[in-house]
């Protein structure tokens, strides 16, 4: 058998043995905004994975994209939506300096819409996964829209929206914001938040993220009525000093990938994929 013939046969086998069908899907949200996401159909017998990107990112973020590819390759149905963040047909990451009006609650609502979108496609088991602050949307969803079809939460590099001002000041800021929101929640504010030096958002928007501090996250984890696994990078510099330890104190299973950073890129992407796939096989 010649080389060309072998290549041709391999191609045919790949096509015939892969039930995956990748497509960009759109979902009109309750606020009439159309959101989009990447959907890959897999083995119906396997659980579907709803994989959510991190803060201000899209489903094309590399960490998400690699997992989409890996899960799809493993025959899993994968839906990687891009949160609209108030932008119709958003397909680009949003700049920190953009006027952010979205809130964590709105994100949870969009997740709910997507879960329903999956349910409408006869998906009975959904494993919710997220990267970084995307896990906050997941936890908010789980808190606000419990659904029996969601079987598991796998969080990657979960972290709160960090402020560089320390916890006491953060608490003070939150208090001030709460008060300010009472006065005018639509007024915008610029403040350092997460990786944004100037996060330009409405008071309501910023407060919604600041409300999800570490304690609230850990609480949400503890209260999650399903298995929770947290895959953390051994050298994730965006985490608080005791964050992993505090996670480990929750019911969540914490997997540490040594040497991996917040995005688990480079050689650690394989470790992430391996750990994620292993976790997918666990109950």
């Amino acid at each position, binding site marked *: 058998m010649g080389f060309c013939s072998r290549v041709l046969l391999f191609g045919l086998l790949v096509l015939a043995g892969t039930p995956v069908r990748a497509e960009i899907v*759109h979902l009109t949200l309750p606020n*009439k*905004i*159309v959101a989009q996401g990447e959907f890959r159909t897999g083995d119906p017998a396997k659980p579907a994975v709803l994989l959510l990107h991190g803060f201000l990112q899209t489903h094309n973020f590399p960490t998400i994209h690699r997992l989409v590819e890996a899960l799809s390759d493993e025959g899993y149905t994968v839906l990687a939506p891009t949160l609209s963040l*108030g*932008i*119709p*047909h*958003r*397909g*680009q990451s*949003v*700049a920190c*300096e*953009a*006027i952010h*009006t979205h809130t964590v609650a709105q994100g949870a609502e969009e997740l709910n819409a997507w879960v329903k979108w999956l349910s409408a496609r006869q998906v009975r088991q959904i494993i919710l996964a997220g990267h970084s602050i995307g896990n906050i949307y997941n936890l908010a969803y789980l808190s606000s829209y419990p659904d029996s079809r969601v079987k598991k939460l796998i969080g990657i590099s979960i972290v709160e929206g960090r402020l560089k001002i320390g916890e006491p000041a953060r608490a003070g800021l939150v208090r001030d914001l709460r008060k300010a929101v009472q006065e005018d929640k*639509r007024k*915008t504010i610029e403040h350092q938040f997460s990786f944004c030096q100037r996060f330009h958002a409405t008071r309501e928007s910023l407060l919604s993220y600041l409300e999800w501090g570490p304690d609230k996250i850990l609480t949400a984890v503890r209260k999650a009525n399903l298995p929770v696994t947290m895959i953390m990078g051994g050298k994730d510099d965006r985490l608080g000093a005791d964050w992993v330890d505090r996670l480990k104190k929750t019911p969540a299973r914490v997997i540490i990938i040594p040497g991996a950073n917040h995005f688990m890129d480079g050689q650690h992407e394989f470790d992430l994929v391996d750990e994620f796939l292993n976790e997918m096989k666990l109950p």
Partner: protein
Amino acid sequence: MKPLSIGRLAILYLAISTMLLALLGGYLWREIDQTSQALHTHEVVAANTELEEAVQAILTRMHNTAEGLSKWDETRQQLVFPEYYTLWRDNRVRDVGLVPPSVDSVALYDKDGHILQGANSPDPMPDTLPGPAPLSLLKREAGHDHFYHFVPVHADPGNMVLLGYLGLKFDLLVELTHARAYRYADLSTLKVSLDPEHAVEASRTLDFLKIEAQPNPELLEFQRLLENSLPRLAIAMLLTLLTATLLLNRLVVNPLRSLSAEIDALRDPNVKIREQRPPSLPVLELENVRRSLDEYQNRLADMHQNLEETSQSFFEQARHDALTGAFNRRAFDEDWHESVRDRRLGEVALILFDCDHFKAINDTYGHNVGDAVIQSISICLQRALRADDRLYRIGGDEFATVLGDTDAHQARLVAERCLEQVLGHDFRQYGLSEPVTISIGVALSDLPAADDSRIPLTELQKRADLAMYAAKRPGGQKIMFYTREIGSAEALVASRSINAVFQALQEPEYIEMVYQPVVRLPMMQHDYAEALTRIRFENELVYPGDIFPIVQDRNLDAEFDLAIIRAINRDMDNGRLPAGQGVSINLSAQGIVNARVMDTMLALLAAETGRKIVVEITETALITQLETASANIQKLREAGALVALDDFGSGYSSLRYLSSMPVDLVKFDISLVRLLDNGTDKQKLMLEEIARMVITAGYDLVAEGIETRELLDKTIRLGFSHAQGYYLGKPA
């Protein structure tokens, strides 16, 4: 065409050069101006091209900016949630860098084309969409020109869901300024011919724009340089022309004028050829011409000098006798006429010299000897003359001199000195046996004429001729001064004698022969008679002293011999010479070798066999053809004649003749015979010895000139066999 001088040609050349330079300058100026115009046109075209490219780039960028902005998520967000539209429009759009700073305004319009509400913008956008998007406009507002560009904004990538519209506003000039770098277009000159508040499609923008090209600094610099350079160039050209003029004048014009003047000067024969060579000319060709001219002048000078020398030489040759070096006849005539004309002559003496018997010498010894004799006579005469006296050779054997301020005594001294010099010269060195003598005739200007007036100087030559003629006469003095007697007699005689001789030759009856008896000694019996020639002319007798110089001078010897023979023959026929009467006939030297004379004589001898006929050959007459003469003498003797050598002792060659020719009788010259009377003892002794020697040799001796008994006795005593003379019988 009249030729122009080099100066005018130089001026013409410079004028033409100046005109050509001016034309060249004008042509260059015109070319540069045209080139500048072409460059300007090119730059205007390039400027418009740049403007067109800039406008196109602006439109493209405007479109791209609008497209990019319309695809931006936050743009769509504003169309959905316009709550923060103003913030987005005024800050967010600018901050994110999706629009260039030159964009004056950004606006969003809803699906109905109404602008989203927001705070007023410093550059307000139209409240409603001006037309269906996409749309690009150029509009003049408040003195500024703006581009407007409107594009639709869709919610989905497939542009299926229209959310609204995006509008951008650019300031034309600002955008043009930033669109590109301009090399040619000058934006400060941009003019937009658009009515205020009037909008046109942006694609027609160029129709309303007008721009000028930037000033080309290089071209401006070039023109400035050219404008600054032209006066300097003109000055430089003028200086160059001035320098060229000076150089041309110095190097060419002046040298050529100098050369021309020199050449012109050569036309004047009186101008002396330049002796000092002028300094070298700086131009090689002119120097060559100058050198050639100098060489030509030098050659001309040499030729002139040679001509003068040749002319002088010819003049000298023309005035000098080639043989003797003395002045010739021409010089004599010229000097004579010049002297006569200038009347410089005071008391002068004209002396003529003539070589005796020169023709015979020439014929006997040849021309070389004759020439040597003439040369020697010339030398002798020049030696005898005073330093300032000129000797002229005026004929073959005739010389002359003119002695200025000379009286008769001085003339005689000179003449005698000349005669002595000639007589004292040893002519035997040339092989001559006979003595060479000269006859000298002297004429003095101070001898008054017959009328006692001073004679014309031109007469002197004639007088000297007559005197010399007299000196030529046999037995006379060799120096004769002209006297009136000579003048009258000789002139008369000469004229009469010549006529007589020619008359006698034509008519022999004019010849009257007289016969002088010759007696035999010692008994004095009449033996024969010597026939002596007379010519009766005009009832007067012409004697041999007048006849024979004419005959010899005119070379008529043989003719005259024949006439004499015919006369004697006539006398024999008519009985004047009785039968049996012997006769002695004198024949000339030419006659003895002349065939006709010999034939006549032989005929006479044959006819007169019974008569004693003696043929006398004059010893003084040189016999030129000795062998022929000897043969003829022998013939005469064989025919019965006796031959006598006449005038023996009057010349050098008496003994030579005697030994060479078969003669029977020897007639002692009368000068020898008279020595018996008046000679010294030594002379007498010599004469006696000569007579004895001749007798001993077997010849009969004849003595002539016997005029006394005593002389007769002496001849008898010396053994003479015959004698003749007046004592014994006069010619009759």
